[in-house]
Each structure stands twice: as C-alpha cells, then as structure tokens.
C-alpha cells in the first residue's frame, strides 16, 4: 500500500483518505490516487532482490534450503534489561524436527476430493456456444455436492471475451435442486443462472456480471419471505451483476460488495457490511448491525415491525424515509427494482408489495453512508467496473 501512495495517515475508517487509497470518494480516487501496478511490481522486485542478496551472503541458492535453519540466525543482545532476560532458545530450536526427515512439503499438491464433474460437463456442453459467442439455453439437475457451479464457465467466457464480453449474448442455464457452496462465484457477464430450489453459502461471491436468480420450487407451500433460500456471506466482494433470491439470505449479506445489485426478502446479521458500492434491496426483516463499515452504495429496507432503527449500525450510515415529496425519484426507482425482481423470480411477496405499494412505501427505509449526498446516490449506482 505504501508503494501505491499510502502515507500512513491512519484515517482509513473515515472514507476521506487524502491519498485516494482507502476511500470511495470519487474525486480523491480520480485526482489523488497515484498508484500504478508497476509500483507494486517494483516493490516486490526489490524485496526479491534483497532476499537474494541475503541468501547469497549465506551461500544459499534456494529458499527451501533456508527452512528450519535457525542456526543461521544471530540473537541480538537486547537493548533493555527486559529484552536481555528473554530466553529465545525454545523458539529457535529445531530439535522437534527429526534430522533425517525433510523440512519442506514433498508432494506437488493435494489432489482435491471433489472432481467437479458437473462443472466439467457443463463446460463441455456450453463451450461451442461460448466460442461462437452464440449464447444458448441449458438445463441441469444440481445437488449440494456440486460446488462453485458456474465458475468454470465464467472463466472460459472471461478468457475469451473479457468479463463483460458476452453480456449481450448470454448463456442461460436452468437448474433444479440444491446448489453446493459458492453458486455463481466470480460470475461473468454473459452467464445467467436460474435455480429452482435453494443454495448454500457464498452465492455470487466476487461476481462481476450476469444474473443469478434463485426461487423456491414451484408449488412450495411456505411463505418465501419467512424462509431461508441462500446461505451466509453471499455477494462477498462482488463488483457487478445482479442477484435475485425469493427468500431470506443468511448473515453478512453483501459484505464488501462494490457494485452488484441484489434483491432478497430478508437478511441475517451484518447485512451490507463494509459495502462500498452497489444496491441492496431487502423486502423483509434484517438482523443486527446492518451497514457496519458501509461507505458506499445504498440499500432499501422494508421495516414492517419498526425495529430497523435499533438494528442498523449508526456509525457510518443514516436512514431516511422515501415517502416525502423530494424522494419521488427513489420511489419510482424502488418500484422498478421490485418489478424486475418479480419478473425474474415470480415472487408472490414481491408482487403483493407492488400491488399495495401505497401501504408499504411508508415502511421502507433508504440506507445510505452519512458522507454520501442523497442527490447523487442514484447516479452513483450505475455500474462502475473496478
């Protein structure tokens, strides 16, 4: 970070970092951030160079030869009385490692147990459509043993056409069943995945584009807004794309999100934690600590039981109603967001909110960082590739 311009101001938590390193403030990022990848490259080159110089002085040519060689360390005498009393022998001793056994890992890698069979099959079957940029529709059954589904295809798309290169000719895949961990992780533009069923943790982690839509199986008797449908930490570090889930998400929903748009019907604790961009709409209950460390983007939250004031984290965000005259643009926006959600998921709860919007509108909160101005929020959520 120092190589990129950080000056150790230690105001990282205030969003006003004058070097543009730790801030979401556009002007600071655009006009004052001086970092370039080459600076970090240089830094590491120097680290490597210095390491080599030290190794050369020790007569060692490979890092492996240094592992466990505490005999090469020299113990300083210590400057203070207390330091001089320290006995460092236990941590410097290699006695517990048998001399005739190797000191470094001897296997090239751990072969994963999960062979990713569904993922590989999907790649095989979609590759022609990706190569030709043709798009297409596919269907699979999915089980909770199938992890990181979609990532392989996103990788193939990104490798050939870039992160958003296929957004206009998307590949659409419909799933039935229960997805394992990380459904739609690193999702690229041009991959739209529809899941009828439910999913584990980390849905949409690091996603940058495309669409993930999750809805309960047709004919489910339960109320979607009271039922979990995706697990914890969904959209972790996402930078773009859309996630619609007709049901409740787990904890830390949208943590470190910087650009994705999502609609869910409820979230657990720590929603929108450290969020720096994007838009989250929660059509139902949230847990505690909503908006902790949130410095960018914004959220709509439906607060039917009037508990949200006690639940959100007051440090960096503030909340306001959207039923006043000057918030008209936000009301229109919210309706369009819910309409899209209903069109994708068929959520009857979403539909009933639209049908009775006049009754619900007074129960919505707009959650925004204190430092952001209401006038500029709507513009700020236009997709910004990082």
């Amino acid at each position: 970070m120092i190589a990129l311009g950080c000056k150790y101001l230690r105001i990282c938590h205030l969003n006003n970092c004058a070097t543009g390193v730790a801030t979401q403030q556009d002007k600071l990022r655009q006009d004052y951030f001086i970092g370039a990848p080459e600076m970090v490259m240089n830094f590491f080159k120097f680290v490597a160079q210095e390491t080599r110089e030290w190794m050369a002085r020790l007569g060692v040519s490979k890092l492996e030869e240094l592992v466990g060689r505490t005999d090469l360390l020299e113990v300083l005498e210590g400057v203070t009385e207390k330091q001089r009393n320290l006995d460092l022998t236990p941590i410097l001793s290699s006695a517990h490692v048998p001399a005739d056994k190797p000191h470094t890992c001897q296997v090239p890698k751990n072969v994963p147990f999960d062979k990713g069979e569904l993922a590989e099959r999907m790649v095989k079957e979609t590759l022609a459509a990706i190569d030709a940029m043709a798009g297409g529709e596919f269907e699979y059954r999915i089980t909770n043993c199938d992890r990181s589904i979609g990532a392989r295809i996103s990788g193939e798309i990104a490798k050939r056409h870039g992160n958003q290169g296929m957004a206009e000719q998307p590949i659409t895949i419909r799933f039935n069943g229960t997805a394992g961990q990380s459904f739609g992780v690193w999702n690229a533009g041009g991959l739209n995945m529809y899941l009828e069923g439910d999913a584990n943790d980390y849905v949409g982690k690091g996603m940058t584009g495309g669409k993930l839509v999750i809805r309960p199986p047709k004919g489910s008797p339960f109320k979607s807004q009271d039922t979990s449908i995706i697990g914890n930490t969904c959209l972790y570090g996402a930078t773009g794309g859309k996630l619609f889930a007709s049901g409740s998400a787990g904890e830390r929903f949208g943590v470190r999100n910087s650009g994705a748009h999502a609609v869910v019907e409820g979230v657990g604790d720590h929603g929108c934690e450290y969020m720096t961009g994007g838009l989250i709409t929660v059509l139902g209950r949230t847990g505690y600590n909503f908006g902790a460390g949130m410095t960018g983007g914004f959220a709509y939250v439906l607060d039917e039981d009037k508990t949200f004031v006690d639940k959100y984290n007051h440090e960096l965000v503030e909340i306001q109603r959207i039923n006043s005259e000057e918030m008209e643009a936000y009301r229109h926006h919210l309706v369009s967001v819910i309409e899209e959600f209903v069109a994708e998921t068929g959520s009857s709860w979403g539909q009933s909110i639209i049908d009775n919007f006049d009754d619900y509108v007074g129960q919505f909160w707009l959650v925004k960082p204190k430092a952001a101005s209401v006038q500029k929020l709507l513009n700020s959520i236009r997709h910004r590739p990082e």
Partner: protein
Amino acid sequence: MAERLSNDFQFLDVPRNDPSKKDIGVRRSQYVEIYSPFQPEQAASQAHRCLECGNPYCEWKCPVHNYIPNWLKLVSEGNILEAAELSHQTNTLPEVCGRVCPQDRLCEGACTLNDGFGAVTIGSVEKYISDTALAMGWRPDMSDVVWTDKKVAVIGAGPAGLGCADVLVRNGVKPVVFDRNPEIGGLLTFGIPEFKLEKPVMQLRREVFEGMGIEFRLNTEIGRDITIDDLLSEYDAVFMGMGTYTYMKGGFPGEDLDGVYEALPYLVSNVNRNMGFEQSADDFINMSAKKVVVLGGGDTAMDCNRTAIRQGADKVICAYRRDEANMPGSRREVANAREEGVEFLFNRQPIAIIGDNKVEGVKVVETRLGEPDARGRRSPEPIPGSEQILDADAVIIAFGFRPSPQPWFETAGVSTDDGGRVLAPEQAQFQFQTSNPKIFAGGDMVRGSDLVVTAIWEGRKAAEGILDYLDI
C-alpha cells in the same frame, strides 16, 4: 457558541485560505504587518481542514515539535484557552513563530494536504491562538510551580535565551536575563522588521515573561558591564544565547565606499527610529529617493529590500548569485517583496562596487549553476564576458552572519569550532553543555545563523540540560 464543525471532507470542501493581505499602498509605505488577523470563524474553518493524520508529518517537521493537529482541533472547536495552554507546552513564542517561521519549508511544507489540496494554514492559526488568548487575558498557568533556590543567568534575550528562561521558570528556577539592547527579543526586535513582526508583540511578551517570574536586566553587556566570572560565582549556571553578529563580506573591491551599508545596522537604524531608540539623527540610514541595490538572497536581504521600499527608494534591485529555486529564504517573503515592487536579478554575482569616494554602481557578472556539491547545493560559476553595471546610489550587503566569539570565552573555558561556533552538543549527558560544565549555550551562536524556531528549541533543550545538571 457556533455549532461544532464536523466534516471529514472539510479539506476538499473548503480551500486553503491565507489571511488577507493589506492594501499594497499601505504595505509600500507603512511599518505594519501585512497580513490581517484571522476572524474566529475563519480560524475554526481553516483549522478544521486538518486530517489529523495518525502520523503527523507537520509535528515531526516543526523544530519544536508542536502538537499541531491537537491544537488545530481545539481551535476548530472554539477552545482557544486550551489551545493556548497546549501550544505553550512546546513553544515559548508561538505567536512569533506563527509570523516568521518559513512554514512553506517546515510544518506546512510537510502537511499531507500540501500535496495538491493546499496545506493547512498552520502558521496563521498558531499566531491566532496566542494573539487571541493573550488579548482575552490568558496567561501561562504557573500555579503548580514549586520554586527552588536555584538561579541561572541567561546572556541574550533573543529566542534562544527566552526559550531557556521559559523552561527554567516553569521548573521553579529563577532566570535573570541580560541583554546589551534596551529591549528584549534579540533579532526579533533589532533585526526582523515590523512588517513581519510588529514590535508590540514582543512588548506584550515581556510583560507575560515578567509576570511568570523572569527578570530582565537590559542595557547590560556581559564582558563590559558585568564579567562572566561575576555571573559564574553569583549563579548556579549560565546560559549563553548571544547570536551571530559578524557580518560576512563579499571580498570584492569597493566595499568600503560611501553609500555601502551592512544589512543589520541598516535595519536596526530603521527600527531605532521607529521605536524611539535613536541616539542621534545621523545614525539613521535612509534610502528615500535612492536607487538601491541589495546583494544577497536570504531573509535578511528580503527585509532590507522591503524596508528600502517603505523608506521611499526610487528603485530597489535585489541581485542574487543563484537562481530563484535555490534561494535560501522563505518563498512567501520573496513573493511579498516582489508584490511590493522589488526587482530581482538572478544568477548575478557582484565582482566590484564602483565609484569615486561614493557608490555609483555595482559590477555584476552573470552566473550559471555548476554541478551539485556533496550537500547537493550547486555553486554558481561566472559566464565570461557577461559583466554588466547596475546603477546605484546605495548598496546594502546581506551576505549573512558568522559567529562572534568573545575574547572572554577562553578564560571562561568555552571552546568553539574552527568557524567560531560554540561547542555545545545536543547529544550529551547534559544537553547543550559547553566545555565549561557550568555554562550552557544554544541558538545561532551554536548552530550558526539559522531560524527563530531552532533557537527556541535549543534554548528550551539547554534548560532541560541545566535542570539535569542542577539535579532538579
């Protein structure tokens, strides 16, 4: 009270605003400070621009390590008296430093915001704090001081001597300050002109110091009116802060002609006239209606330039042998001089002053910068055939000052280096102790001519050395 400011983005929303300067007509004719004071809202709003960097570069760069972000915050909250108390914990003359420090090279130069945002106006706020607090009747809190039976003689009432006396008195040691001048301040009074530092500032300070228990014996020269031996036998220790008063010469022909003046006597004659210390009207050096050439490029040269303008000189040319970027003084003062009508000629080295009995002109040769020396400063070299004569009725030589070791140093056992600077190392068992264990020294006479704030620092540190030496 106004609502407390709370804006993390104040540094973006509010630009740096220096206090406004007075009308140029006033500046060109009167001996008054050129900046108007800050208004309270302005001071608070500017102070609130501070980012409070966890690692305050300004504080490290400031030679006395002022608690800058902390008092800026107090000012932004309107807590002036608390700010004054804090400001005095590290600085003896905050309102003076706020006026005359070259902030662009010190605190404000190191300010994080100096990189494209405009540094916080640290100097102006520092001045504002003490000016305002003193006007409100605030005086340093001496209620906790436990008096000892020790007393220390301080030679010189300049920034170094005052810094030393300040720390001594706050620790219950009685300082008696001797100065050959009729007023305290050293070069602050008899050197730095009023347009940078108005004289009532030091007069008020004298009241404050006397209120704290510092005694001044003025018009008293050590070595003439009182001997060092008297001091050594009467006092528990002695501090010397006597400055540097040997004028550097150019070493070219014509320096003795009529109409050639040394900078300091010139400036002092003007101060003496303004303050009523003038002994005889003949002592006054007047540039009125003259063509003046000032030789040199430091703070002293700038002060001579601007004094000559105020005296009504026809034309003032400042000739300096390096280029503008290599001038040693504060850039702010160069800009001020230029605004007031001083003409600058860079890369001109004087080689002779010309005239029969009386100055008629200065012969200069153009220079270019040679390769950087070991310290990175590039020495000028003359360009052959580029000689030129500048018309002049008067020439002021401002080449700087060298130490002036006194004849009695030897008998008192005080050693100097080859250049005449008193040897008194900061890194020693007793900071700033000279080779006579009972004598301490600091300021220009130890470090060579430098700055007000560095002299204050050394005086204060020497006081700590003395307290250790006296086992207090």
